[in-house]
């Protein structure tokens, strides 16, 4: 697992209060991890902070799974 993936999963575990084992790459924040729309906004803010990047609102709306987040962050940092 890349450093990014590991960091993303750690943030998800912390913010959503879910078991680490449930945070699979394909997991959807809302459908699988019990987040609501406000939780996802906060998650995106946490990613911005942790990776020192900016995620525009239209991009943030498309980040619905752990994989979406990892892909966006890796592209943004590349």
């Amino acid at each position: 697992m890349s450093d990014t993936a590991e960091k993303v999963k750690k943030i998800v575990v912390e913010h959503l209060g879910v078991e680490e084992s449930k945070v699979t790459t394909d997991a959807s924040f809302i459908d699988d991890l019990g987040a609501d729309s406000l939780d996802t906004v906060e998650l995106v803010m946490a990613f911005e902070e942790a990776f020192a990047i900016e995620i525009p609102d239209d991009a943030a709306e498309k980040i619905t799974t752990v994989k979406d987040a990892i892909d966006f962050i890796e592209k943004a940092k590349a």
Partner: protein
Amino acid sequence: MFGRMTAPRRVVVTGMGIACPLGLGVPHVWKRMLAGESGIGAIQSFDTTNLAAKIAGQVPNGTKADGGLDLNEWIPTKDQKKMDRFIQLALVAATEAVEDSGWMPEDEESRCRTGVMIGSGIGGLPTIFEASILISQGKQRRISPFFIPSALINLASGHVSIRYGFKGPNHSVVTACATGVHAIGDAARLIAVNDADVMVAGGTEAAVAEIGMAGFCAARALSTAYNDDPTKGSRPWDEGRDGFVMGEGAGVLVLEELEHAKARGAHIYAEVIGYGMSGDAYHITAPADGHEGAFRAMRAALEDARMQPSDIQYVNAHGTSTPLGDDLELEAVERLFGDEARNVAMSSTKSAIGHLLGAAGAVEAVFSILAIRDRVAPPTLNLEKPSRESAIDRVALHAQERPIDVVLSNSFGFGGTNASVIFCRAA
């Protein structure tokens, strides 16, 4: 009420919960209060260097088992950041009250007949403070999506309803330091006129933060002379008083229609028998001469209860320990009771826990009801030398066993708002 044809339904108290500077849990807090213990101390949770007032009553940390607060025992960690402390404290007190009442609606109709009315005087002031700092730093995009729902006063009621699935009236009261009494009185009326069968009602406050302390300091409302001797700071009616000591906490009652409570065999603590309100129309913070607004609120509560002053054995005073307010309230109570003044006891439990603002009337409702249950008047701590003599026994320093069956409790708020509620022993 328009065209009400039937008599109002009777309302009783079937559950109680409390979080205050003396700790968590009704039995624990009451035991400490009757023992004359104080919950006031030096503020440790933030730096008070630049504040004139450096003492307050804060809910002690600890575990449920020892009467202290560990939030993780009450609210999932991930949800804690979605709510200001005033909501967290409301959830703690509401959880105790609901469990104490044993009321857990099992069908949709019962859920829809169970409502919540928990108010707050100020709400999420610390949360607003923190968001303001981000904005002043140009970090508007860092404002949490939970900022607004964390700060909104009615979210205390909202969270309690969500936790238990109570789908009846979901309401909230904001009347400064009269909030707690208004919430209980208004909720009782909702039951009386058949809008609900059960209401979870009370008040909550958590303004012991730099912004809250600085604001009340600026209004010259807080005690500053006892920073080195915190437990002496709250001293209602004493000649050495110099302002109130701020406290935090929450009080919650489960109110229930009498027949509903009887039908399920609920334990009934007391009946809510009278409720009265008034406005001063005088000044934003100061009470009017003679506190005639307080007088009218108390008289209205007596009329509502169809009682005479001689029916009341104990008054739980607003008594905040401010130089002006304490004696004016005393004057109004003396005027109301006339020759009966010598037979009534009146104390201020704020002497032990400070002034809980929007939660004050609610925690004092708990103490008033316990005074009936145990036939004991809780003490006014630090009342060593009254600034004014009175025929009314103000229960100085030590609790007193007295034949208490009916209690009147007062709360008055900034804006010139006054509320009184009367509880009596359930027949």
